[in-house]
C-alpha cells in the first residue's frame, strides 16, 4: 500500500536497511561474535583496537566488538518491549478517553496531566528509586513514563474522527457492538500509532541507555551500550575508544528509528509534519 511511497525516500530506505542489519546481527549474534562478551581477561584491560580485537577491549578485558554485537540483542529487546508497552497502554487509554468522553475521559486526562507534571525522565528515576535498578525495571519505568504522552496524542487523533459522519453511519447501520467501532477507530488512528511506535522506539532506547549510564538500569555484566559507556567513562584519557564506540552504535540505531519515523509520517499523513 504505502510501502512503495516509503521506499521512494532514500533516507527512509537507508534507515530500514540499517535497522534490518542490526536485527540480523541481533538474531545471529552467537555466530557473528568472535569472542564471549562476558569473558574477562584482566591482563589486557582497556586494550586499544588491534587486528584481533577491532574495537579493542573494555576495562575488564572483554572484547568490545563482541559486546557491541550482543548488545544489539539487549537494545532491540529494550526498544521493542518498551515501545510496545507504552503504545499499547497509550492507545487503550487514549481511545477510551476519546470515545467515551465524559467522566471517564476527565479522570484519564487529569491523571495524564498530573503524570506529565513530572519532568520527562524524572518519573522514570522515581520508579527506579522505588523498585531498584535492573534492566526490566528500567524498561518498565521508561515505558510507563511515556504512556501519558502517547495517551494524549492518541486521544487527540481519535477525537478528530470520533464525531465524524463515518462513525455515525457505522453506528446507524447497527454496529452497536463497541468492538466493531473500536476497529473502525483503531484503523483510522493506525497511521498515528505506526509513526509513534518508531518514535517511542528511539525514546525508550535513549532513556534506558541513560538510566544504565547512571547505573540505574542494566547491571553488569550485561553488554548494554549505555552501561558500557558508564564503565568506560573513567578512562577517557587513556582509552577513549571504549567511550566512543558504543555511543556510535546508539546513535546509529536511534537515528535510523527517527528517520524511519519521519519517513512514515511523511508518507502516512503529511499534515502531521
Amino acid at each position, binding site marked *: 500500500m504505502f510501502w512503495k511511497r516509503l521506499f521512494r525516500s532514500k533516507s527512509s530506505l537507508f534507515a530500514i536497511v540499517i535497522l534490518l542489519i542490526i536485527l540480523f546481527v541481533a538474531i545471529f549474534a552467537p555466530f557473528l561474535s568472535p569472542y564471549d562478551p562476558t569473558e574477562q581477561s584482566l591482563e589486557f584491560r582497556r586494550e586499544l583496537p588491534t587486528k584481533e580485537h577491532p574495537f579493542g577491549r573494555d576495562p575488564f578485558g572483554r572484547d568490545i566488538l563482541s559486546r557491541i554485537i550482543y548488545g544489539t540483542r539487549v537494545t532491540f529487546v529494550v526498544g521493542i518491549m518498551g515501545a510496545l508497552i507504552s503504545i499499547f497502554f497509550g492507545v487503550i487509554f487514549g481511545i477510551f478517553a476519546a470515545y467515551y468522553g465524559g467522566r471517564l475521559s476527565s479522570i484519564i486526562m487529569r491523571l495524564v*496531566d*498530573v503524570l506529565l*507534571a*513530572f*519532568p*520527562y*525522565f*524524572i518519573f522514570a*528515576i*522515581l*520508579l*527506579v*528509586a*522505588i*523498585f*531498584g535498578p535492573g534492566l526490566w525495571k528500567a524498561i518498565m519505568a521508561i515505558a510507563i513514563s511515556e504512556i501519558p504522552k502517547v495517551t494524549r496524542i492518541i486521544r487527540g487523533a481519535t477525537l478528530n474522527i470520533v464525531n465524524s459522519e463515518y462513525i455515525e453511519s457505522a453506528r446507524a447501520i447497527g454496529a452497536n457492538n463497541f468492538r466493531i467501532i473500536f476497529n473502525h477507530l483503531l484503523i483510522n488512528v493506525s497511521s498515528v500509532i505506526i509513526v509513534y511506535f518508531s518514535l517511542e522506539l*528511539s525514546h525508550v532506547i*535513549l532513556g534506558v*541507555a*541513560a538510566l544504565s*549510564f*547512571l*547505573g*540505574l538500569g542494566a547491571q553488569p555484566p550485561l553488554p548494554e551500550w*549505555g552501561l558500557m*559507556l558508564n564503565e568506560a*567513562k573513567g578512562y*577517557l*584519557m587513556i582509552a*577513549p575508544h571504549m*567511550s*566512543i564506540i*558504543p*555511543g556510535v552504535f*546508539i*546513535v546509529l540505531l*536511534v*537515528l535510523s528509528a*527517527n*528517520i524511519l519515523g*519521519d519517513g512514515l509520517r511523511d508518507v502516512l499523513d503529511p499534515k502531521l*509534519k
Partner: protein
Amino acid sequence: MVNYSKYIRFFKFLLKRIFHAFLIIIAVSLIVFFAMEFAPGDPAILALNQDATPEAIVQWKEEMGLNLPLYIQYFRFVKGIFTGDLGSSYRTRRPITEELGRAIPITLQITIIALIISSLLGIILGIISAIKRETVLDDVIRVFVLAGISIPLFWLGLLLMYYFSIKLHILPSMGWGSLKHIVLPSITLSVFPLAMFIRFTRSSMLEVIRQDYIRTALAKGLPYKTVIYKHALKNALIPIITVIGLQFAISIAGAVITESVFNIPGMGRLLISGVYSRDYPVIRGCIMLASVFFILFNMLIDLLYNYIDPRISL
C-alpha cells in the same frame, strides 16, 4: 473610557490557572510521598547498618519522625513544601533544604543558559530553514536536527569532554567553580532542545506562510521580507512559547545526566546519589522541587500564551 474587560478576563484565567497548578502540586506530592512506601526494605536498617540494635532502630525512627502515622508524615511533608523544610537526609542527617539550596542554583545556571542558547539559536535557524526551504542550507540544518535528537546526552558530553578538555586542554573536564566550568555542560545540554526548537520553528513558520493572509499580503505587492518579518514571524512564534515549556522539562532531565558526566554538584547529582543510597527524603525533596519548578514554569507559559492569544483556554 478604558476597557477593562480584557484584563478582568485574564485575571479570572490567572486565578483558575493558579488553582489548577496548586491541585497538581498536591497530586504530585501524594504520588511522590506514597510512592516511597512501596519501596522494599526498611529505611532504618539501610541508614544504620545491618547489626543495629532494635533500640537504635527505634530511636532513629523517632528522630526521623517515622513512627508517626502515615498521614501525619504526609502532612508534615506537604507543609514542608510550602514552608521550605523538606526534612533531613537519612544518610547525613543534615536538613535537605540546605543541600538543595546549594545545589539548585548550579543546576539552574546550566539549564537556563542551555535554554537560552537553544531557543535563540533554534528559532533563528528554524526561520532560516523555513525561508530557504528545499535549498542545501535547509537540508544541512535538517540533518543536524536529526543528529541532534538522536545523540545521547551522556555520549555527547563525553565526546566534548574528550576533545576540548583532554585533547585541547582549553576547558576543564569536571567540577565546578569558574565560568569555564559552565561552558561544556551548557553546550551539551543545549543540543537536544536546539534541534527541537529548529524543527518546531520551521514547521510553525511553514504553516503560517501557507496561510491565506500571507498570500494576500504578497499579492498586494508587499516585499517578501516585510511580509515575513512583520506578519509571518509574529504569528509563527506564538506556538513556540509552548515548546519552551516542554524543552524545560527535557532540560531538567538532561541536567541530571549532564551533572553525572561532568561531576557537577547540582540537584541532579544529589538526586542520583540519593537514589543510590536509598535516601528517601533526598529523593522526595529533589523530585518534588523539580516538579514544582516545572509546574510553575508551565503555568507562566500558559499565562503568557493566554495573554497574547486569549482565544486559547485550558
